[in-house]
């Protein structure tokens, strides 16, 4: 009992109790609750903002995906169109080539026929000339006296002349 009396001073205990309780109730109302509230509200705000950030990130990701598919589509379309144009070009080239070939064939044929016609014409005019010449030779022979040797010689001359012309 003496030990208790020596070490425990009731007045001190009482003052200690009262002082602590006053400080406790004051701090509970004016410090702990506001601080806990601040921390809680900050936590909530962080969580909300974190959530919205995550949502925006997801939105951006889907948008990116959309754009990529769009871009791919556009690229594919462009490629298809280019291919088409290429084929069209090739077709046109082929057509032009064929046309040109046909035209050249045509003009060749025409030239050939023209040439043949000319040859025919030349032949005809040659024939006429030969006839004329023959007539001419005959006229000369007839106009001169018929001397066989002379005539033969003359005819040969004419023929030589003809050969030269041909």
């Amino acid at each position: 009992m003496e030990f208790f009396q020596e070490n425990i001073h009731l007045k001190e205990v009482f003052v200690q109790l009262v002082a602590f309780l006053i400080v406790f109730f004051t701090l509970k109302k004016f410090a702990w609750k506001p601080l806990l509230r601040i921390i809680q509200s900050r936590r909530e705000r962080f969580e909300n903002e974190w959530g919205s950030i995550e949502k925006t990130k997801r939105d951006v990701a889907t948008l990116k995906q959309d754009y990529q598919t769009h871009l791919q589509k556009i690229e594919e379309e462009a490629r298809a169109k280019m291919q088409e144009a290429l084929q069209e070009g090739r077709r046109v080239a082929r057509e032009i080539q064929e046309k040109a070939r046909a035209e050249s064939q045509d003009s060749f044929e025409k030239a050939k026929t023209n040439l043949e016609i000319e040859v025919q014409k030349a032949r005809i005019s040659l024939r006429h000339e030969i006839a004329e010449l023959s007539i001419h030779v005959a006229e000369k022979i007839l106009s001169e006296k018929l001397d066989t040797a002379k005539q033969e010689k003359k005819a040969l001359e004419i023929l030589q002349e003809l050969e030269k012309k041909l």
Partner: protein
Amino acid sequence: MNAADPVIADAVHAAAAAAPPAEELPNFITLLEHLFPKSPMVHFLVRWENIVFSLLILGLISYTALRAARKQGFLPKGVQNVWEIIVEGIEAFVTGILGPKGIEHVPFLGTLFVYILLQNWLGMIPLMKSPTSAWSTTIALALISTVYVQWVGIKEHGFFNYVKHLAGNPVGVLGLVLVPLMLIINLSIEYLAVPLSLSLRLFANVSSEDKLLYKFAELNVMYRGLPFAFQIFANALVLLFSLVQAFVFLLLSTVYISLIMPHEEEHVSHETAQETPH
């Protein structure tokens, strides 16, 4: 150190000269007593030594906490930052044991913890003293803690169920016969053993820390050199054990609350009780 030596030596002599052999380092009140032994003011201070240092700590806590709470900044700075760390840490610790409902006990347990911790540490500052090295201080805190725990029990269970719990939840004739015994056991444990163990543990630890510091300081005055290293070691020990003792007080108070709270949290409290063999 040389300049301080005579003062310390004087103080040691003064302490030794006092009627009961002083076992603690001198604080400014003992120095005042040494300087003005006849002054009634000093006599009053000596009489209320522990209370003076307690009030110092209470003032410090109140001032900083109220300032911190008044700022309410979104980005905490300075004193607000410190107090928010304390509040958040204690909140996490208490709700970890008591569950989310335990947040209402955070102000009480937090104030208790900070108060005890700073009182324990105060003895390390020259010319200061740990008020918790006196049993009067710790028994007051232990009584407050006990009453708080029982009040939580009454609030949570209702008065009738609380008394039933104290009587050991009697079932059948045997239970009714055992009621007086259970009442005696429960009452003596909850109203006597708990505050005694809480207060004695804290008081004994802190006063022996102070004695340790005093003894090493005494060695330092008597011998040069080596004891200084011991003193530094003792300081580190006191720093650590003061924290441990404050923490143990907080932990045990929390566990007592969790034990008296309704049974949905019982498995949690059992786990924590097993983890703490203090």
